[in-house]
C-alpha cells in the first residue's frame, strides 16, 4: 500500500452519529490495565468460573460429529422451546406456547437488542432503573430510542420507587427495562416493587422488558417472574438464557418469551439479522435443561457460600456491604475510603493487584460502590479480601487517604 493510498479522503463521510455517540464501556479500560498485569486476582469477571456441565458439552460434540451443523428454524429448535415452556410452567406457572411465544436468541444480549427494536420508534423513551447492566442503554439508543435513567440507591436496597417513575414518565415513554436479580448490585426486586412497576406500566400503557438471566441465582427466597404477575403477561418480554445458570456464556444461547404479536415481531427482525441462534449451542442447551439440573443447583449453592464469605469479608474490612439476594455480585460501598469508585478500583489494581469494577460505570446510584464478582474460586476470594484489607488499612493510615477524606 502506498502512502498516498493511506491518506484520508477528506470527502469520505463520517460513521453513524448514533454509534459514534455511544460511550466506550467503562469496563474496557480496566480490562486493558488488568490484562497487562501479573498476579492479578480478578473479581471483575461477569461470567461463571465453572466450565459448562460435561453432559452439555458432550451433547454438542455428538451433534457436531453427526453433522448437525445447519441452521435451525428461526424460532430455534422446537425441542428446546418445548423444554423451556415446561420449565417455565413448572417454576413459575406461566404458560408460553413453544410455537410462537418463545424465541431462542443468541444470548440475552441479542434478546435485548430484539426487544428494543421490536418496541421502539425513533425518539421513544425507555425507563431504565440504574445501576444496571452496561448493555441496556446502548441497546435502546441503537434502536433509535432514548434511554431515561431512573436512579436507585443502596439506602433503599436498590428498589425502584414509583414516585421516581412518575416523575420521569412522558407521553413518549414506551417501555420500562429492568434486570433482576441485578448485575451489578445483586439486588432482588421485592414482589411489591415488581407489582408497583406492573401497575405503573398498566397506568401508562407501557411494555416491560424483564431481563431475568439470574433468576436461578436467587439465594434467599424465590424469584418472582414479572410475567406471572396479574396484568403483566400481555405487556412483558421476558429475557433469560443459559449463560449464568448453566455456565454457558461462550455458547451464546438465550431465549425471549412474549405474547404472539410481540414475539413474532422480534422473530421477524431475528430472521433477517441472525437467522437462527448457533446450532451446536442449542444442542448443548437442550441437553443442559434436560440433564444438568443437578449441576445448576450445585453451582448456585457454591455461589451462595462464596457470597456469604465475600459479604462478611467486606464488612469486616470496613466496606459496608448489604447481603445481595441474587446474581453473583457484591456491591459494597467504598465511601469510607474517601476515594471515587474509579480511583479506588484503579489504585486497588495497581497497589494490590485485585481487579474490581468501579460502580460508576453502571450508571446513576453506582458511584461510591465497586462491583465484586464472586464467580471466583473461594480461596482466591479470601486472598483478594486479604489484599483489600491491606489496601484499605494503608489508605486510612496514609496522608493521601486522609486528605481525600478531608476534602470531602
Amino acid at each position: 500500500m502506498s502512502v498516498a493510498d493511506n491518506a484520508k479522503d477528506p470527502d469520505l463521510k463520517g460513521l453513524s452519529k448514533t454509534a459514534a455517540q455511544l460511550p466506550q464501556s467503562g469496563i474496557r479500560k480496566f480490562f486493558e490495565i488488568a490484562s497487562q498485569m501479573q498476579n492479578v486476582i480478578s473479581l471483575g469477571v461477569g461470567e461463571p468460573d465453572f466450565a459448562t456441565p460435561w453432559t452439555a458439552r458432550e451433547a454438542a460434540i455428538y451433534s457436531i460429529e453427526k453433522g448437525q451443523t445447519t441452521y435451525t428454524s428461526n424460532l430455534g429448535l422446537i425441542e428446546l422451546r418445548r423444554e423451556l415452556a415446561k420449565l417455565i410452567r413448572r417454576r413459575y406457572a406461566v404458560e408460553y406456547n413453544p410455537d410462537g411465544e418463545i424465541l431462542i436468541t443468541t444470548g440475552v444480549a441479542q434478546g435485548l437488542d430484539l426487544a428494543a427494536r421490536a418496541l421502539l420508534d425513533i425518539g421513544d423513551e425507555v425507563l431504565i432503573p440504574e445501576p444496571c447492566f452496561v448493555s441496556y442503554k446502548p441497546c435502546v439508543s441503537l434502536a433509535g430510542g432514548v434511554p431515561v435513567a431512573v436512579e436507585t440507591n443502596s439506602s433503599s436496597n436498590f428498589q425502584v420507587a414509583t414516585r421516581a417513575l412518575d416523575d420521569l414518565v412522558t407521553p413518549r415513554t414506551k417501555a420500562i427495562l429492568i434486570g433482576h436479580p441485578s448485575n451489578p448490585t445483586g439486588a432482588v426486586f421485592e414482589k411489591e416493587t415488581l407489582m408497583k412497576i406492573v401497575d405503573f406500566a398498566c397506568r401508562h400503557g407501557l411494555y416491560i422488558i424483564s431481563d431475568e438471566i439470574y433468576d436461578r441465582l436467587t439465594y434467599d427466597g424465590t424469584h418472582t417472574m414479572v410475567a406471572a404477575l396479574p396484568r403483566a403477561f400481555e405487556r412483558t418480554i421476558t429475557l433469560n438464557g443459559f449463560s449464568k445458570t448453566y455456565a454457558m456464556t461462550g455458547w451464546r444461547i438465550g431465549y425471549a418469551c412474549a405474547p404472539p404479536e410481540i414475539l413474532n415481531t422480534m422473530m421477524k427482525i431475528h430472521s433477517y439479522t441472525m437467522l437462527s441462534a448457533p446450532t451446536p449451542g442449542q444442542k448443548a442447551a437442550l441437553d443442559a435443561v434436560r440433564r444438568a439440573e443437578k449441576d445448576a443447583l450445585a453451582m448456585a449453592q457454591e455461589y451462595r457460600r462464596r457470597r456469604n464469605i465475600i459479604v462478611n469479608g467486606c464488612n469486616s474490612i470496613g466496606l459496608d456491604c448489604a447481603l445481595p439476594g441474587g446474581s453473583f455480585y457484591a456491591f459494597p460501598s467504598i465511601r469510607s475510603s474517601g476515594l471515587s469508585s474509579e480511583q479506588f478500583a484503579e489504585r486497588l489494581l495497581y497497589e494490590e493487584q485485585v481487579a474490581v469494577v468501579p460502580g460508576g460505570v453502571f450508571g446513576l446510584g453506582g458511584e461510591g460502590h465497586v462491583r465484586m464478582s464472586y464467580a471466583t474460586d473461594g480461596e482466591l476470594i479470601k486472598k483478594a479480601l486479604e489484599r483489600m484489607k491491606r489496601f484499605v488499612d494503608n489508605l486510612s493510615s496514609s496522608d493521601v487517604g486522609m486528605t481525600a477524606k478531608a476534602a470531602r
Partner: protein
Amino acid sequence: MNTEKSREILQILQHDSRTTAESIASMIGESVQDVKAGIERLENDGIIKHYSTTVDWEKAGVDKIVAFVDITVVPAREVGFDAIAMRIARHPEVRSAWLVSGGCDLSIMVEAATLKDLANFVAEKIATIDGVSGTNTQFLLRKYKEDNVLFHELEPDNRLVVSP
C-alpha cells in the same frame, strides 16, 4: 444445628476437608462455635470417618501397584458375606472393599509397593481363605479421575480478566 446444615457441612468437607470452621460458618450462616460442635458430633457419630488427601503418586515419582480384585465367595450360614469380607478388609493392603452385584461378590482395591508383593498378597492371603472360590485381578494402568478430581487435565481460567 439442623440436618440440612449438617449435610451442607458434610458436602463442603467432602469437597475440601481443609475448609476451616470459620469459613464454613461464614458460608452457611452459622456461628463458628456451632460449626465446630457440629463437626465434632459428626465425627463422634462416625458419620465423618476420616480426612485424607488425594495424591497423584505418579507425579510424586513414587511407584505403587494398584489392583482391583474381584472375589467370588461361598457365603457362610448366618454371617453371609460379612465375615469373609471383614477378614479381607482388615489387611492394610486393602484400601477399599465393597460387596457388589454382578459376576463376583466382593470387589476390593489393593495397593502394594511391587508387583510381587501384590501378587503374593492375593495368592497367599486372599485366595486361600476358606469360602473364597475364585479371584480375578486387574491391574491399574493409569488414573484419570479420583475423588472427583481429574488427574490429567489442567483447566486454566480462560476468562477475560474484566468483563460486563
